[in-house]
């Protein structure tokens, strides 16, 4: 029961702190009911507008490596918050918590990116208190 409560609390927090997408509506692309947690190896980082993209190889349930692409914050805002493209490098092991794209592809919106040390990478730029869906 305690486990369920903790999961419920975590789910509630995720549901109210949705990623901020300024250049289009979150609901236009992602499903706030489909959470995903990926553990994998960084392949590359696209540090470009309108959002950065992380490419990660993560194993699926059968142990097969699957290439995921996850959208992060806008590079301008990340830069203002002190982050650089060098915060992640190829081969880094990360855990990504996010929301899946509605189209069912291996595409997600990264809510958080965490290194094995527990450090949050690119934190503080991809969230807003607003759930900007109807």
């Amino acid at each position, binding site marked *: 029961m305690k486990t369920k409560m*903790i999961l419920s609390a975590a789910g509630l927090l995720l549901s109210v702190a949705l990623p901020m997408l300024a250049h289009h509506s979150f609901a*236009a692309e992602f499903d706030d009911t489909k959470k995903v947690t990926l553990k994998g190896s960084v392949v590359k980082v696209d540090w470009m507008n*309108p959002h950065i993209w992380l490419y990660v190889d993560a194993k699926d349930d059968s142990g097969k490596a699957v290439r995921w692409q996850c959208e992060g914050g806008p590079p301008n805002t990340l830069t203002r918050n002190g982050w650089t493209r060098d915060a992640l490098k190829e081969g880094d092991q990360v855990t990504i918590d996010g929301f899946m794209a509605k189209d069912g592809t291996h595409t997600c919106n990264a809510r958080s990116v965490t290194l094995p040390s527990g450090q949050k990478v690119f934190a503080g730029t991809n969230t*807003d208190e*607003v759930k*900007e869906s109807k």
Partner: protein
Amino acid sequence: MSSNIRTLIATGVALVAMAAPAFSQGRGPAGPKPPEGPTPRTADGKPDLSGLWERPYTPDMSAFGRNQSPDPSLPDDPKPKANPNARAKKVLPFTALGKKEWDAYDAANGDYTGSCMPFGLTRSINSPDPLQIMQNPKYIGFLFEQNTWFHLARIGGTHPDPRKMTPTWFGDSIAKWDGDTLVVDTIGFNGRTRLDTIGHPNSAKMHVIEKYTRTDLGHIQYEMTIDDPVTYTKPWKNVRTFTLRPDWQIMEYSCEENNKDFFEGHIKATQDPNNASGVK
């Protein structure tokens, strides 16, 4: 305590820590204290609105948020039972046509900004990235970091004959001083935009009145009134506070650069490229 439970607790604590700033600070860490001092003025004695301004991201003009407020004269919108943490909101005064359009709108069927089309005036003002204002006695210039767009308002003068105007995304803006407040009046919209990220509708008949008042060195009190008789039964406004950020510089923002969302088909651009607002 099992290791699984410990992991879950740690996850929960981490999520709380991660989410907490979103409630208290909005987007990202709070900035430094803005500079203090009197309202700066230009050589002609008018308030000088120049500067790089941090603005509250306003994805929903009917909702309350940090440094932003919808029209207090509108009725309260009860919070949905399923989401007690939702922001407090007001009910916008839709016409029957406006209500029909709003009820039918689903961004999953298309959001014109997903293909980097111009946000238009209101959605650009509502965007989270900073705004550079430049001013001389004849013009006030708005340089939006969002997608590196700009918009000019002529100080003084009148609008062209509306029947001869070419409708545009940002409209035709004229400005005048009302005491120490600059009032920017805009018509001539193309009706292809949404007011805000959540997608409130508007028509080509929209008339937007903005008021900029630099109350001191570090702040602008901003007010936007939406006057669109096709979509809303009466004019309504939204007010907010802009904060000067002398520690920032405006940056390039090329939306088209790597817009994978659209290039790869994860997002639809719009239902109807000639009528994204849904309202004529």
